């Protein structure tokens, strides 16, 4: 009893590894239950903060690229982004979260980040 569809590749192990990596990186839902509700909520909140932080960083880089920031502004933006990044690291450590955990699969809309 076999299905008609075939899977053809010369590198099956590599594909299995990459597919598993892609699937494991993204939890389908926030795992919040009475035992770990704090961590579940922290993960959700930190994911959103990380999204905003990355957007801010990207926007700043675009402005650097366009040459539209003065020396003083670069100094200020640098300080802000550095502090944000270090604060995020601190919070991730407190809640035992890794970088790859701060993402959400939004189903048909794709991944949050």
């Amino acid at each position, binding site marked *: *009893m*076999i*299905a*008609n*569809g*075939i*899977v*053809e*590749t*010369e*590198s*099956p192990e*590599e*594909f299995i590894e*990459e*597919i598993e*990596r*892609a699937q494991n*990186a993204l939890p389908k839902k926030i795992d919040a239950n009475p035992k770990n509700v704090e961590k579940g909520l922290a993960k959700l909140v930190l994911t959103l903060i990380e999204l905003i932080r990355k957007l801010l*960083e*990207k926007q*700043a*880089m675009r402005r*650097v*690229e366009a*040459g539209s920031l003065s*020396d003083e502004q*670069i*100094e*200020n*933006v*640098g*300080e802000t*982004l*550095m502090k944000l990044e270090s604060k995020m690291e601190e919070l991730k450590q407190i809640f035992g979260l890794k970088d790859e955990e701060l993402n959400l699969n939004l189903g048909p809309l*794709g991944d949050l980040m």
Partner: protein
Amino acid sequence: MKLYLYGIIDSSDQIKESIYGLEEGSNVYNIPFCDIGAVVSEISQPIQGVTKGAVLVHEIVVEKLMEQFTVLPVRFQTIINGRDSLLSMMQSYYKDFKDNLARLHNKLEFGIKVIWPADKVKANIIKVLKKDEQKTIESDNSPNKRFIEEKFEEYKISKEFEAKADKFIKIIDIFFGKFAAEKKLEKLKTENLLLDAVYLVEKDKQKDFKEALEHIKNANYPGFKYLFSGPWPAYNFVVLSKKPGLLTDSEQNLFSLTK
């Protein structure tokens, strides 16, 4: 009795061939609704987890149906709470089902995954960027400016990496896309997995589509690896919107007769 749902087909006729369902002794049959049908088998207990055998039975039922009908495949482990619930679902989604059945008629799904040599691509980008280096920021020993400088380097590498990915995906899609009616392309699910794509292909173009794989292999992009799969039921191309205005008057009459 609960019903295990395999798919929706473009026929209200009974299935002539005997097809085994998921539960032993329970054959697959069609429950008609207007001019379409829901293919089910009876199930007395929940399926215990996802096993290779059960997934294969589900897939084989759908593929057997595909030989005779246009099928909207339903996700593995879809169990409906009895005939009335099933008919109510059919009524709600009838328009959607009809639209999808018309769109997917005579078409099959194929999958293409491509791994690229991400490390080498990145190393090349860094080499080229270093060569053309022009200082955008004078860091003058300020840690804040140095931080921005480092971030900007990462930004340039990542931007170039994405641009290269887009370029290669475009090339790959030239090979396959011309034989497809619809497609869904996902870029860089991981750094190495350049492309994860599904193509909807008309049955009479499947040979050309398969040949496109050989053509792209012969194009010889070093370090690129391909995974080709199919033909599959069009799992990724069924779009449900639960459109309002579910049934026209004539369809409503048909529904009453069916019940």
